[in-house]
């Protein structure tokens, strides 16, 4: 009798809360290797963890040593982290290296985590944007170029190397315990800035639901690009109210005024390049993903907001 080989999976961005949850879901059935660009994390004795720059030669050694079957690429450096140049290197060049190695070593399944930010926030956005819509963000803010480039790269590999079975996920705002992105820190703060007179519709997905979505996506090799969002919506200012945040109104017209204010204050929690996302809605349609992978989020918006109301400054 032969022992069936457990799948070997490389998970990037291991220091993030989302990757930790994905790892916890997969660790019983798979042999995992965790890497992160930023720091080394301890994930138990059974999971080797590395702090490696994808662009360094030693990264290839991991592929040789562990003979991966799949890659879950969650290691996108967020727009609020690092400088523009370093982020570009990590997200675009690093991802290219990762996909090149995946191709070279015959990997059968790749899941890439992107973001809904790639659609870009403009006044003329229709609601329920689907996957075929153009990615306008690159033309709107230089700080989001690397996110769009990462997606385009993944898309090129998706079509050029069908055997890689690449699935790209574009989630809406990921929030919940342990999440350190811009929107999560705003919901968690006591006082949050808003642009006076603008309260765009937003979508939120609980981090545990997102981890479920990634694991589901990994298990079913359906290639393509998918939005991930629940069928529930709320206006930004209403969400802040439900999270128990005081709203600080920033004058919003003419558009130069808020940009000047935000640049001068240089608020990390409310960066000027994301300003448009707090002005105009980017509502994505997650129905294709829900259908294809039979995905149904389990945590409601009310539950998410209750967490933030009861846990101010959770991280």
């Amino acid at each position: 009798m032969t022992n069936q080989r457990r799948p070997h999976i490389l998970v990037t961005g291991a220091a993030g809360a989302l990757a930790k949850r994905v790892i916890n879901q997969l660790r019983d059935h798979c042999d995992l290797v965790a890497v992160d660009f930023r720091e080394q994390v301890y994930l138990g004795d059974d999971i080797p963890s590395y702090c490696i720059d994808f662009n360094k030669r030693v990264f290839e050694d991991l592929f040789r040593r562990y003979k991966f079957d799949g890659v879950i690429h969650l290691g996108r450096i967020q727009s609020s982290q690092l400088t523009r140049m370093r982020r570009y290197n990590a997200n675009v060049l690093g991802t290219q290296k990762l996909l090149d190695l995946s191709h070279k070593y015959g990997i059968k399944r790749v899941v890439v985590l992107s973001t809904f930010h790639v659609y870009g926030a403009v006044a003329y956005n229709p609601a329920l944007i689907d996957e075929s819509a153009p990615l306008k963000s690159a033309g709107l803010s230089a700080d989001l170029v690397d996110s769009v480039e990462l997606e385009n790269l993944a898309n090129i590999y998706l079509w050029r190397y069908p055997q890689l079975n690449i699935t790209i996920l574009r989630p809406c705002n990921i929030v919940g315990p342990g999440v350190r992105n811009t929107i999560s820190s705003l919901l968690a703060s006591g006082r949050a800035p808003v642009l006076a007179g603008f309260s765009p519709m937003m979508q939120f997905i609980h981090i545990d639901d997102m981890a479920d979505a990634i694991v589901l996506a990994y298990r079913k090799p359906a290639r393509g690009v998918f939005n991930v969002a629940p069928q529930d919506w709320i206006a930004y200012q209403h969400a802040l109210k439900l999270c128990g945040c005081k709203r600080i109104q920033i004058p919003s017209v003419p558009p130069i005024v808020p940009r000047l204010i935000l640049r001068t204050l240089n608020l990390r929690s409310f960066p000027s390049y994301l300003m448009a996302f707090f002005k105009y809605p980017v509502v994505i349609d997650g129905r294709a993903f829900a259908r294809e992978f039979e995905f149904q989020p389990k945590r409601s918006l009310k539950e998410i907001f209750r967490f933030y109301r009861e846990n101010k400054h959770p991280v």
Partner: protein
Amino acid sequence: MSLASFLKSRLIPAELDQHINRIRKPIGSLGYDPWGYNNEAMKYGFALTKQLYEKYFRVEAHGVENIPAEGPVLIIGNHSGQLPLDGILVGYALAARQENPRIPRAMIERFFPTVPWLGNLLNEVGAVLGDPVNCAKMLANDEAVIVFPEGVRGSGKLYHDRYELKRFGNGFMHLAMKYKAPIVPVGVVGCEETIPAIANIKPLAKALGIPYAPVAMPVVLPAKVHLNFGAPMHFDDLEIPEEQVTERVEKVKAEINRLIDKGLSERKRLF
């Protein structure tokens, strides 16, 4: 009792509250839909429009029962009167009908979402950015959608051009055909007299980034408004050349012209 609930109890009678709740909209767990419609905000909008509709413009609506009780439908009308009052009144007529009321969605100019407060307010009461993708997704969601194919050409026209239909876009016909949505034409009479404009200052409009800058009185006159809804028009979804689509649009336009003439002949006096 908080201030909000006190105001609500004064402004929104229980009957009205129930009426809106009875019209079930596909909304999320916190009362919003993807386009920003909000059930609670709608109640305030409805209460305010009731006063405008009944007391101020003393609207007379005929044939509102022609709008099907369910399924996708496009309500196509003539646009007039500088402000989108016609859309609000047509919407109210449908939402307030006793049998099978529906809350329709109005397609609005691309300029509105950029205006602070107003953009959000319009969204909350059901108005949606006039984008073909939005219209298509709403028809797929079985909504009733109000479209004025004249767009700003219609609402910005001057008093001496009143009740003259401007060029219609073909977009609505393509959507109606694709989603097998019947078209209910509506002739709006009276809105042209609410804000009569004698000129349009184009350089000012350009400088302010608004569609037009009318020279008009800064008040909305209480003209009596007549709404005449026609019978639903059905079009098949065959692949046809654009010329034939335009012919179909002309048919709808002719029907609206007939309904406008009907309204004008019914009208005894302007106010």
